[in-house]
């Protein structure tokens, strides 16, 4: 069995007695994995990270790192290090002194400090800038210093609080790959907080999606995107069509426009449900090219077409209180549709997910 790097058991954090930032959270982060906490601002992800680091104490609950209870231990007694959103580089120290700080505080011998700092600066390609002050470096370089400053301590767990948030798009994408590579090289458990779903999907081994202080779903990127279990997760990650309906049989749902469609897995309950469908899983068929048998289908009319270069986005009217979104690739063999065209929308039963509210 894999060892747990971080365990949170029944962790609740209240601020000022009435604001609940984190609500009875249970979470196990495996040793050596790249774990992302994903959610909109104010969902409690940063507070969760800060409780692991020791900047905040839970109001109630247990935080364990490699099995040992953290309780009310201050940050300087915890075997974790943090990369801050603002980097928090000490402006009055050189890059070298920033990186050496943690080792010096741990009373590591001077010669060891020198070698370890040099080595980690090499790793992040900043060996040339050891004597620079943080303010003389670009945002991307500062980011790497922050990373080096934490990694040089060889923490059991590295905590990263939206570390790429302040970088521009191109740099951010490069850093995503670098971070992921680095993590697989050093083998340290990363706990990564972000509100950027793309970042989470591309980098993580597993993702925990949070909303209003609760952990809604934990799974790998594929599960989170393809099999969201709740309306919130489905809606927060990527584009999605949410269609209300009612269970009408063991493998069928009657949608609010009256059309009955098949679903792949049986559903235990009866009554109202919500069907979640990704726009790219829907296909549009002109009258002369009907969909294959076994696909769910319904009549619809194109009400809007938006050109994105690589894809077309269609709004189609299919008898719901809001139009369906359909995404089709811009390839000659697929063909395009004009506003006003009467079409058939289709999808395979396993493309749809039932989600709860």
């Amino acid at each position, binding site marked *: 069995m894999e060892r747990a790097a971080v365990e949170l058991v029944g962790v609740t954090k209240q601020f000022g007695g009435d604001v609940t930032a984190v609500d009875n959270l249970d979470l196990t982060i495996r040793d050596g994995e790249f774990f992302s906490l994903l959610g909109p601002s104010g969902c409690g992800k940063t507070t969760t990270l800060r409780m692991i680091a020791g900047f905040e104490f839970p109001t109630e609950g247990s935080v364990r790192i490699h099995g040992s209870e*953290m309780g009310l231990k201050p940050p300087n007694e915890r075997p974790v290090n943090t990369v801050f959103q603002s980097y928090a580089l000490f402006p009055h120290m050189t890059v070298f002194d920033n990186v050496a700080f943690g080792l010096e505080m741990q009373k590591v011998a001077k010669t060891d400090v020198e070698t370890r700092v040099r080595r980690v600066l090499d790793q992040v390609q900043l060996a040339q800038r050891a004597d620079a002050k943080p303010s003389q470096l670009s945002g991307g370089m500062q980011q790497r210093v922050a990373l080096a400053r934490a990694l040089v301590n060889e923490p059991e767990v590295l905590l990263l609080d939206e570390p790429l948030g302040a970088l521009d798009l191109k740099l951010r994408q490069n850093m995503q790959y670098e971070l992921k590579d680095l993590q697989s090289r050093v083998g340290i458990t990363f706990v990564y907080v972000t509100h950027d779903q793309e970042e989470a999907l591309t980098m993580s081994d597993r993702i925990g999606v949070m909303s209003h202080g609760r952990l809604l779903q934990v799974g790998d990127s594929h599960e989170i995107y393809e099999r969201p279990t709740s309306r919130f997760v489905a809606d927060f990650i990527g584009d999605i069509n949410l269609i209300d309906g009612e269970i009408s049989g063991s493998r069928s749902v009657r949608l609010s426009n009256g059309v009955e469609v098949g679903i792949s897995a049986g559903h235990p309950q009866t009554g109202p449900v919500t069907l979640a469908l990704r726009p790219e899983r829907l296909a549009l068929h002109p009258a002369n090219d009907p969909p294959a048998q076994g696909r769910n289908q319904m009549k619809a009319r194109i009400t809007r077409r938006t050109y994105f270069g690589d894809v077309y986005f269609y709004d189609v009217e299919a008898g719901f209180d809001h139009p369906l979104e359909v995404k089709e690739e811009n390839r000659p063999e697929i063909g395009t549709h004009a506003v006003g065209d009467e079409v058939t929308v289709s999808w395979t039963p396993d493309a749809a997910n039932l989600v709860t509210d």
Partner: protein
Amino acid sequence: MTQAPVTPELEKAAERAESRRGFLIGLPASGYLVLFFAIPLALVFVYSFASRSSTGLTVLEDWNLDSYRRLLDPLVVEIFVRSFVLALTTTVICLLASYPFAYYIATRGAALRNVLLILVMIPFWSNFLVRTYAWRVLLGTDGVISQISQAFGGDSIRVLFTPLAVLIGLVYGYLPFMVLPLYAAIERLDWSLVEAARDLYADGWTAFRRVTLPLSMPGVVAGSILVFIPSLGAYVTPAILGGARTVLMGDYIVSQFLAARNWPFGSALSFAVMFVMLIAAMFYFRAGAKTL
């Protein structure tokens, strides 16, 4: 130390320990302020209800409101009104001179602006007593202004020891208090708002009146109060430049303690002045400080 899972009680205890730490760090200073500021303040308040013996000693019995009743004495009211009018006049003159001045500085280029600002600050940071004293060299009977007047065939002019001299001294002393908040308010103004007003058919003057002026109002309020408060309690300036006839509040309070030996009445006077100032200061913190 082995740790246990956190409970609300443990979290509370940790929070309390943190609070206690903060309190203890501040304790030497807060203790000092209580002993040498809060208690003296309370003491003066207590004194204002005490009575005075025939030899000028304060008797801490027979508590009464006599000192406060005496505030309504026409002589006292006259001193108070005179101080108030003088402070108000000082404020208005400072405002009229400073607004265009601050506007001028704020609309220069960054480098020039810094130089101009530092030039305002230099006299401002130098010794107040000395700066006030300097006017004696200018305003006396054989003062420089009088000499200039005589050189041009005019009469000898003596401004010294008149209310005008005090007014000049006060304006001189407190002008920077007006310039700085005004400068801060105008400098941070978003000029595209003025351009928007011009775009919407306002002429220059209207744009100033409807956009610039209202937006710089916090600076006007802050500056006015920063000038008004110290002017009202001024003591050094009238003592150096004013004559015996223009007794002002600060002077009057001092005389109750050092000359007349009527401490209860002096205490009541202090509280009356402080009351007016605290009201003004409250306006300052509510209207001005937020934006500064």
